C-alpha cells in the first residue's frame, strides 16, 4: 500500500513539475513577442552559449572524427570497403554524433553556468529586484537565453560536423592512406539532404532543451547553496538524459519512417 502511495505521490509531483516547466517556457516565449525586444541581451547570450563554446566543440569534434575514422577503417577493411570511410564518418557525424555530442558539450559548459547564474540571481534576490522595478525576469533573463540556445546550438553542430569530417580525413587519408578523392566522393554520394535537415532539426530541439531545462532549474532553485548545487546537477543530468531520449524518438521519426 505504501509503495502505491509513494508511486502516486511521485506521479503527481512529476506531472505538476512538467506542467510548471511547460508554463515557464510558454510564458517566456510569450514575453519574447512583446516589446521591448532584448536584442543586446540575446547577442550577449549568443556570445556566451555559442562563441565561447566553440573551442570545446572543435576539440571534441576533431577527436570524434579521428576515432570514428580509425575504428571505421579497420571494420570496413575486413569487407574491403575502405572507400566508404568518408561516407561512414560523414553520415554518423551529420545524423547522430554532431548534434548529440555538441549538445552534450554545450550542456556541460554553458547549461550548467546558466543554471548557476540564474540560481545565484534568485538566491541574492536579484530576480525579485527585477520584479520590483517592473521588469519581467522571463523577458529580460530567460527569453534571450532560449533564443540563443535555438540559434547557437545548430551553428555549433554545423561546426562540429565539418571539423569532425576533417578529423576523419586526417586519420583516414593522411595516416591510414585512404585515397582523398574516394573519401570526399563517398561523402558526396552518401549524404542526402534528409540527413542534413534531420541533423539541423535535432540540433534546434536540443538547443531548446538545454536552455529550457537549465533556465527552469536555475529560476526555481531552492534558497540555499546546497539547493543551487542540486539545481545545477539536476539541470545537467536532466538536459543530457532528455537529449538522448529525444534523439532516439526524433531519429525514429526522421530516418526510419
Amino acid at each position, binding site marked *: 500500500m505504501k509503495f502505491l502511495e509513494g508511486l502516486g505521490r511521485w506521479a503527481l509531483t512529476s506531472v505538476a513539475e512538467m506542467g510548471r516547466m511547460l508554463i515557464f517556457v510558454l510564458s517566456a516565449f510569450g514575453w519574447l513577442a512583446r516589446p521591448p525586444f532584448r536584442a543586446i541581451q540575446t547577442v550577449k547570450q549568443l556570445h556566451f552559449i555559442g562563441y565561447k563554446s566553440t573551442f570545446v566543440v572543435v576539440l571534441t569534434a576533431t577527436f570524434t572524427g579521428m576515432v570514428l575514422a580509425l575504428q571505421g577503417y579497420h571494420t570496413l577493411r575486413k569487407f574491403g570497403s575502405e572507400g566508404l570511410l568518408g561516407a561512414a564518418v560523414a553520415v554518423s557525424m551529420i545524423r547522430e554524433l554532431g548534434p548529440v555530442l555538441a549538445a552534450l558539450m554545450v550542456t556541460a559548459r554553458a547549461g550548467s553556468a546558466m543554471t548557476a547564474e540564474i540560481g545565484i540571481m534568485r538566491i541574492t534576490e536579484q530576480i525579485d529586484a527585477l520584479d520590483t*522595478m517592473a*521588469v519581467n525576469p522571463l523577458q529580460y533573463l530567460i527569453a534571450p537565453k532560449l533564443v540563443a540556445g535555438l540559434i547557437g546550438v545548430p551553428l555549433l553542430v554545423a561546426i562540429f560536423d565539418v571539423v569532425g569530417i576533417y578529423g576523419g580525413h586526417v586519420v583516414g587519408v593522411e595516416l591510414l592512406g585512404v585515397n582523398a578523392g574516394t573519401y570526399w566522393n563517398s561523402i558526396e554520394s552518401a549524404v542526402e539532404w534528409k540527413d542534413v535537415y534531420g541533423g539541423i532539426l535535432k540540433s534546434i530541439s536540443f538547443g531548446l532543451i538545454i536552455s529550457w531545462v537549465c533556465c527552469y532549474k536555475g529560476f526555481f532553485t531552492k534558497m540555499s547553496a546546497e539547493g543551487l548545487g542540486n539545481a545545477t546537477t539536476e539541470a545537467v543530468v536532466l538536459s543530457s538524459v532528455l537529449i538522448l531520449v529525444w534523439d532516439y524518438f526524433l531519429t525514429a521519426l526522421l530516418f526510419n519512417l
Partner: protein
Amino acid sequence: MLKLVRVTKTLGGQQVLRGVDLAVPEGKLTTIIGRSGEGKSVLLKHMIGLLQPDSGEVWVDDVEISRLRGHALNEVRKRFAMLFQGAALFDSLTVFENVAFPLREKLRLKGPEVTNRVEEKLDQVGLTGMGHKFPAELSGGMRKRAGLARALVMQPEIMLFDEPTTGLDPLMAKSIHDLITSMQRKFRFTAVMVSHEIPEIFGISDYVAILKQGKIAAMAEPSEFQRTTDPEIKEFISVGGTVLMHAKASEAKGVS
C-alpha cells in the same frame, strides 16, 4: 495610503501571517520589528506583490494589488522601490549601470540625462566616483548605499527597506540609518522598514509596528511605547532599557 487587511500566508506548511492588519501612514517612516522568523520580510514582500496572500487584501490607495498580475501589477510597482537585505545589485553590471538600470529600462532615458541623474544619486549616498566599480568590489555598506541610490533614482512614492543594516558593523549601520532618514525627510516618500535593530530604530522611526505571532501586536509612535502596559511588548522592546532613552532623544530632536 498602503494598507493590509487580514492578510494570511502559509509558507512550507507553516502559517507565517495570521491576519495582519496594517495601515502605513503616508510620508512617514514606519518600522516593523519582530523576532527572527516572524515573517517581517514576508510581510514586506506582500506590499509590493512579490508574494500573494492566501487570504486578505493589500491596498495601494484605491487599488487592491494582491490579485493583480502582469501589466496591471507593474503599473502599481512603478510607484515603489525596494532596498533588499543584500542590496540585490546585478553582479554583471557596474554600480553606475545598476543605478542607471531603472532609468534605461522603464523611462527609456539615454545619454547625459542618465549620467546626470545617476551621478546625482551616487553623490547623495556618498558614492561619488565609485560608478565604475562592480558590486563584488564594494564593501557591505557601500553595496547598501548603491542599492539605495538605485531605489531612489526613480523618485518612488513608497520605499520598502528589508533589514537594510543586516551584516553591517554598528557604525556602518548607523550611517545607513542616518542616510535613510535624511533621504526620507528630504524626499518625503512613504517608507516601510523591516528591522531587528532594537533600540536604534526607535530613534529614527515615525511609527513602530510590532509583528508577533503573525499579527501586528501594536503600532504607535516610538514615544508611546514607554507607556505600554502589555508585559510581552514591554519585554520585547526593553532591550537594555534603552528604548526610553532613544524615544526621548528622538522627541528632543523633534524627529517623531
